[in-house]
């Protein structure tokens, strides 16, 4: 069988790639994509623990995380559209005022 630590290592790799992407990416949509990647890394760790400890709770939590991710993507992309309409740019450094 695949040991639990392999899944945790893969989750760590995925989470780190998402974190590095948020640091180095300048396009706001790319930043949101890296955020989704970090959420999925956490989901992978949750499912791994859930299935190795034979408890359903972790998978229910993953289900809730997916719902929250869908809501976050919807609202986040609406904000991106609104910002782009006013500023004609997607660079995160250009949007430094809390104003749409």
């Amino acid at each position, binding site marked *: 069988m695949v040991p639990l630590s392999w899944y945790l290592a893969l989750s760590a790799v995925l989470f780190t790639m998402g974190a590095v992407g948020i640091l180095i990416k300048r396009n706001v949509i790319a930043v949101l994509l890296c955020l989704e990647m970090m959420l999925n890394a956490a989901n992978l760790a949750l499912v791994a623990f859930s299935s190795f400890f034979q408890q359903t*709770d972790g998978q229910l939590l993953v289900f809730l995380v997916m719902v929250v991710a869908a809501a976050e993507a919807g609202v986040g992309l609406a904000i991106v559209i609104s910002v782009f309409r006013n500023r004609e740019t997607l660079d995160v450094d250009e949007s430094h005022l809390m104003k749409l």
Partner: protein
Amino acid sequence: MTIQQIVFIVFALIITAGGVGVLVQRNPLYSAFSLILSFIGLAAMYILMGAQFLGVIQIVVYAGAIMVLFVFVIMLLNVRDDELHPDRHKYLLYIGVPLGLGLIAEVFYVVTRVQIAPAITDMHATGTVGTVERIGVGLLTEYLLPFEATSVLILMAVIGAMHLAKREKE
């Protein structure tokens, strides 16, 4: 090396390749496609662990609905490559990559040092915990309140997204 371990390694490589693709692509559209590849690999991981329901949901909701939303917005806004000022933020690369390597070193240190009880590490990931039945019973009994709260959250997200993306009347 068992067949499960070979499958794990193949899909882990696919997931990692997708993640690296997100980071190195200049065009956000190609980043989104790389992330879809990564999500499909994750769905295979969930099924490998016996979480069938989440494997299906990962493909339908994540690789399907959410990523289609991203791709739709990218095409709607017609964004060009994100490196309009190539040299201005070069230093971020020199800060971000060492920070990422530090983070991954820390996590690997923790993962290798933490002792999980041997009885649990030997436990096989059998597929009775992730069935639709178990998930459904859990959602409608113990987790009923969070489940209902998510429906309110989705409703708020829909109203908020409509309000934010609406074109203001002059």
